[in-house]
């Protein structure tokens, strides 16, 4: 049941609990309990809104930054990851397999702001060996949602 609840709310976190119960064919109280339990267990960590900032007047720049680091003895990557994720402008920090170690995503108002953050804050950290910054030019699809096109029903109106 958990998987089904999570699959639905991952796509639509605003769904009404009563409706969720109807869709899954279970009692409302069971949904409430299950959701509360998953919150307690830290499975449900938060609810976000998917925004296409490009359609607003607000300037936003997103970037992916590959970071190569030297892990600290006895702490591995934890302490360096923590030093990075504590910056509020950092959206996400992932430990990655492959050519580099950490993938950092962040948002800023302008290219300049993001570049400044990378050169002043990130690159100067002791354990950081190198960084490579990739600016996102266009979001085609985000969180499983296609941003560039609206759904259009291409079917005939009535078919047998």
């Amino acid at each position, binding site marked *: 049941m958990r998987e089904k609840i999570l*699959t639905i709310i991952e796509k639509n976190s605003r769904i009404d609990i009563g409706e969720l119960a*109807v*869709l899954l064919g279970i009692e409302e109280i069971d949904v409430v309990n299950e959701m509360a339990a998953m919150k307690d267990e830290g499975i449900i960590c938060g609810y976000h809104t998917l925004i296409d900032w490009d359609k607003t007047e607000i300037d936003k720049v997103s970037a992916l930054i590959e970071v190569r680091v030297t892990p600290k003895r006895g702490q591995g990557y934890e302490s360096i990851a923590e030093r990075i994720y504590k910056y509020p402008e950092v959206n996400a920090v992932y430990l990655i397999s492959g050519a580099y170690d950490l993938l950092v995503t962040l948002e800023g108002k302008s290219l300049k702001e993001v570049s400044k953050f990378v050169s002043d804050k990130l690159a100067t950290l002791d354990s950081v060996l190198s960084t490579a910054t990739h600016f996102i030019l266009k979001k085609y699809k985000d969180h499983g949602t296609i941003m560039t096109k609206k759904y259009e*029903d291409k079917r*005939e*109106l*009535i*078919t*047998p």
Partner: protein
Amino acid sequence: MRNPLADKVVNIKPSGIRKFFDIVSEMKDVVSLGVGEPDFDTPWHIRDEGIYSLEKGRTFYTSNAGLKELKTEICNYLKRKMNLSYDADREVVVTVGGSEAIDISLRAMINPGEEVLIPQPSYVSYEPCAILADAVPVIIELKAENEFRLTKDELLAHITDKTKVLILPFPNNPTGGIMERGDLEAIAEVIVEKDIFVISDEIYSELTYNGERHVSIAELPGMWERTIVINGFSKAYAMTGWRLGYACGPVSIIEEMIKIHQFAIMCAPTTSQYAAVAALRDGDEDVAEMREAYNQRRRYLMHAFREMELDCFEPFGAFYVFPCIRAFGMTSEAFATRFLAEEKVAVVPGTAFGDCGEGFLRISYAYSLDNLKIAIDRLGAFVERLREEK
């Protein structure tokens, strides 16, 4: 000039759906619940396989009965899902949709004047195809109180010494009704005893919501040798436009069906056949996801009907609900026409699927929940208004 037409064809009634379609297509901003095909796009990996086959230049005919690779996957699939065994080389024909399979199976099996039993409400093609095959269609009217299942008594009451074939359309379009193992066992006994054959249209076999897998009548003792199983890719894999289905059965019948197929059609579309191989190999998860989405919508509609006190048996198959509107003292067509005019929602009158569909509407839930909600709000308002009028 002489009359260029064949009476047999001229005398076939035009589809009831066509008439309604003409009204709907004249209107603007209609919310439709009238479509008999999935709202999902064909999963990308399947489309990709079709594109790849074109890039590789696989643009020629396949063998008449279909690509060997595809026939093998079809046999694996039927074995895996329903424990049905067929020989890929001799007991399978790949067709242009399930529709062609219905047509050629009837044509291969019927001599002029033999009777074909057609349970209704059901898909619009059976009766015309039977007529075109020179059969005498005999309609069995299914009943709401049986959840539109075919019962042993109903079957017995319609069998004569001319009865040759029973068409078994479950999971059912338009009612959403299904036949479970016990239901099938009851009629299989009669079928074997009376020595008739079955064309089992199982195109919706992947879409059942009773918590158990679909059971094919061909699985039952004594039935494999007298059943043509029809299935396809349209509903399970959202591949309606690819026009691909298949029929499986004893070699004696399939061989003759292939004869008709090879002269009338040559072979099913090559690109679609390559794509279908991918569907059968790696499509189980796609099907499960779509099934879950349909099931959620089905529950939503049943809940909404209960709230507005609209009478409807709970259907466990396909993607249709079939509510009863007799309480409003209107015909299905009058109800659907007024609902369309006043609320701009298109549903299909039950009568489009046989006279015994009178008093019912076919509502498709091959639509997004958002779309269904808009339509259901309007249905609620409409039903309320009708009740006030009375």
